[in-house]
């Protein structure tokens, strides 16, 4: 069970105390607390120094900068032993759930380290620190280290039923200088009486899922599904708010719960952009089906360093119900560069909730075009604009110079999956051509006649048809599945292997073919008219 709600501590006058877990310690001066993720079960609290240190130019790289970090990690004996549980499914059959909890700090480091190659340089179990018995560890991250060589120092204190690892993360280059601040902190550690048992969360989110993975999802009515997703979103928002350190601000907008530690100006600008994008997504793709898209959490960190500590989580701190987008204030970047990834995240979350097969089954030409289109989004005032990058123009310039004709709409819409990875100089970046083609479909005030004649909204119809084709493909695959007779000869075995190979590509190609068959069964003349319209568009953009 995530700990955000169950074990909140307080930081007052440089002393962090957590009466529910029963410990307190001094945090180095001018260090600030960073929230932990909603699904985090191990890291109780984390802090970051306001001082930024530079690494060794030659050994750590010229751009290595790092703020020391401190984490308190708990190892609850009961949780560490809980590796399998047996429950019952809808048909009352026994279902065994396997977990892989961390056994101790050593195990945690081994399975969780992501900063590069590491080794334990000091291991002193059972050392004495005042009245406490502690295990001392030092870990060096040296080879292929990301953002400089690191030196971790950790003291593991034994509580009743719970061990607490207090860990500091320094640059190796600065370790000698900064070690004393860590030692002072270790010496201040105290076990205090636990006031109450850890509060239990309602547990609802541990049992339910608001995603398509729920086998019963489709049998629920739209209202039931909406209610369920709302419930989960509320619960997660409550947990996230409860886990916020001092100084963070909480606000609500139509589609988001906003948790911000950034400046008010940046927060309001970012929220406005996110709302505009989300409203556009609703307006543009909302009618695809009756699926409710949850309210998300928008977490805005003060800067990249804080964001970087926040997103460093234990490897099991994940949930299918997570609808949080974390970002940070970057004063060096403008609207486009900073918000493009945000819009893309909003888009992928939106689509995932609309249909689980959408991402994996939408024919590649449309998926690639849509994704790049979204990445190019910018918000001006209350409007969202999609501006193509200079790279696209460059691609067409290259084609012109090489005297290669851009692909026609027919060619683009029938590209096999494998062809996307075979770009070379003669056909430089297909993705740019696809983005341009999608821009052509979207940007005309009036859809090209040929597309208009197929329905009210070609893109929506195409997406709906993709979902339908994907479901049919899945049903057919399950029905035809195993040929019960196993291969007896090598020849049979080889034939089956051949059929199996490239399954994902085959699947996507089959879906593309089915959707094109259903929606684009145009005559040659009709294709030519679409091609003409597209070429006119390219000329308008000065691409031809």
């Amino acid at each position: 069970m995530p700990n955000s709600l169950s074990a909140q501590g307080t930081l007052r006058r440089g002393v962090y105390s957590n009466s529910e877990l029963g410990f307190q310690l001094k945090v180095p001066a001018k260090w600030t607390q960073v929230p932990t993720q909603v699904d985090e079960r191990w890291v109780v609290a984390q802090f970051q120094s306001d001082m930024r240190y530079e690494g060794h130019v030659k050994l750590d790289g010229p751009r290595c900068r790092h703020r020391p970090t401190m984490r308190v990690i708990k190892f609850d004996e009961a949780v560490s032993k809980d590796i399998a549980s047996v429950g019952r499914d809808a048909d009352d059959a026994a279902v065994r759930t396997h977990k892989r909890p961390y056994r101790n700090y050593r195990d945690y480091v081994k399975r969780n380290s992501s900063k590069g190659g590491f080794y334990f340089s000091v291991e002193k179990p059972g050392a004495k620190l005042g009245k406490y018995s502690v295990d001392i560890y030092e870990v060096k991250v040296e080879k292929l280290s990301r953002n400089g060589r690191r030196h971790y120092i950790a003291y593991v204190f034994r509580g009743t039923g719970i061990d607490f690892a207090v860990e500091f993360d320094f640059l190796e280059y600065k370790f000698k200088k900064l070690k004393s601040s860590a030692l002072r902190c270790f010496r201040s550690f105290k076990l205090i009486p636990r006031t109450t048992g850890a509060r239990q969360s309602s547990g609802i989110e541990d049992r339910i899922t608001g995603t398509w993975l729920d086998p019963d999802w489709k049998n629920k009515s739209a209202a039931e599904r909406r209610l369920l997703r709302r419930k989960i979103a509320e619960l997660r928002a409550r947990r996230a708010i409860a886990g916020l350190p001092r100084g963070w601000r909480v606000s609500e907008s139509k589609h988001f719960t906003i948790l911000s530690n950034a400046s008010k100006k940046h927060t309001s600008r970012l929220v406005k952009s996110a709302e505009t994008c989300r409203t556009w997504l609703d307006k543009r793709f909302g009618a695809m089906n009756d699926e409710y898209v949850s309210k998300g959490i928008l977490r805005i960190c003060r800067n990249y360093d804080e964001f970087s500590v926040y997103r460093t989580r234990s490897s099991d701190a994940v949930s299918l119900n997570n609808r949080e987008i974390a970002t940070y204030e970057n004063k060096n970047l403008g609207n486009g560069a900073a918000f493009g990834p945000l819009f893309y995240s909003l888009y992928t979350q939106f689509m995932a909730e609309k249909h689980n097969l959408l991402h994996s089954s939408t024919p590649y030409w449309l998926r690639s075009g849509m994704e790049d289109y979204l990445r190019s989004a910018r918000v001006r005032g209350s409007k969202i604009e999609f501006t193509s990058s200079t790279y696209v123009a460059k691609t067409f310039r290259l084609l012109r110079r090489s005297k290669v004709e851009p692909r026609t709409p027919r060619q683009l819409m029938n590209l096999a999956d494998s062809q996307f990875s075979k770009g070379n100089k003669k056909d430089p970046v297909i993705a740019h051509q696809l983005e341009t083609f999608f821009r052509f479909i979207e940007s005309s005030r009036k859809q090209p006649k040929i597309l208009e004649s197929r329905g009210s909204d070609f893109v929506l119809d195409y997406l709906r048809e993709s979902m339908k084709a994907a479901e049919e493909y899945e049903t057919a695959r399950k029905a035809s599945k195993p040929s019960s007779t196993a291969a007896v000869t090598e020849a049979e075995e080889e034939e089956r292997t051949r059929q199996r190979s490239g399954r994902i590509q085959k699947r996507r190609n089959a879906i593309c073919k089915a959707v094109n068959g259903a929606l684009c069964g145009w005559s040659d003349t009709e294709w030519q008219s679409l091609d003409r319209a597209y070429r006119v568009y390219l000329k308008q953009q000065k691409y031809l």
Partner: protein
Amino acid sequence: MKTIPTCCFLPLLLLAPLVAQDSLQLKDGRFVFGKRMTASVDGVTVHFDNGNVKVPKELIRSCTARDASGNTTDLSTSDKDKMAKGLVMFKGRWVKAVVRDKQIARDRVASARRIEAAKKRRKWVNRHKMKTRNFEFEFTIDPELMRGYMDLMEVYYKVFTKEWRIRKPSKMGRLKVCFYHDRQYFEQVGGAPSGVIGYFRFVEPIELNFFYDRMDEGATVDVMFHEANHYLTHLIDPKFHYPAWVNESLAEYYGASSWDPKTKTMQTGGIQEGRLAVLQDAVGLNKIANRTGSVDDENWLGLEDMIRIKRFSAIHYAWGWSFVHYLLSTPKYKSKFKKYYIDLAKSKKIKKVLGFRAFRSVEPDEQIKWLKSYLGVKDLKVLEKEWHNYIRQMKAASANGYHWAGTFAMSRGMPIKAQRLFKVAIDMGSTNPMTWVGLGRAQHRKDKNAEAVASFDKAISMDPLAAMFYIYKARVLEEGGEAGKEEGKKLRKLAFEIEPDNDQIIMETVWEDGK
């Protein structure tokens, strides 16, 4: 240094005081601690809580357990007289029992110290450090084992730099070589992502990292040759970054070199049989005889495509290796290709571009232009055709090649074919226990459970302390009713006892047990 005594006689009554918690060190660097062990003439039996495991003498470097067994039937009259006087045979001499017991106790302490010291050295913080003329080695394996690799590296350095006329830039010191005792530790300390089996870091601090594969020492040497080749070609011009297709392919070519530790000589131009198996499968040459496959099975890679590939992946290594193998095995191209390779970095007439971290490189168009020029071919297609024809006539000729072909067939979900290939590898004298494991897994997939158990037993006899082998066997036995399930469960527990820190074993045993 073997410490298994060769004494042959000891009254059984004397066994009792020798029962203790022993330790064992294998030649490949593994250890067993805290278990009771019994030594015998042909090995040591480790008494785990869930079964006894006999470790053959050939695998053992050191053990604290001392022998107590003997043969009383062929004793001479004088021997019997000495026995009557209370003497016992110990290390070929008749001594008093007290003397023998004291010596055994001393040996035990010495062995325990030696093993404990060796175990400590397996931690990177306590690693061994040694220097040779051109290299600086840091390693966690046994120094005796390492000595062979150190010689090999020096010989390789000499052979390659002489053949390619390379001189080390004067300011470059020794290359640091980091060698780990197993893959898991290599990934942890070396920071290598899963799937990588060695790497050469060509920016500061320049170093080479790879690990000792106890199941396949040949593979260890291959990786070492491959990665060291990156260093040696780096010496041509440390500011130049070779394109992946030519750099990795040449490294693969040298990776297949063979090494004779006795004469300390190396032979280049061997067949990378694992790569060949992958290639043959890609182009349909690995198919069973007399069957015509459809054309789309023959997935040949074009030469120009290979040169232009941006991400050079595992399959491309195989293609690249075969191309370089063709060029260096063909007299008309051999010296021309070598010149092309050197000149890519050195010649001023080949246009360079600046890449990452200010390394110079050559664009694909330029590479193609000069490849044609150096090799004297007008059209790449002609060269491509010759190369493809060369691949058609390459054959895997050793047990190792068939082992890899079998492994590849298994990974493609073809257990019938895999069985045939593994059997050929065994018939050709494969000494790799993984060949038997592969065969057992393939047999299990086709429900030949009795045969699979026999194959796993064979693998276990070759390496009785490989815990995963017991898991494979348990999986088969558990399909054989209640008795089988019980036996399987016991084997899983035994595997857990042998390797309690192995995550895969934990998953297979503790989870299975539901505790």
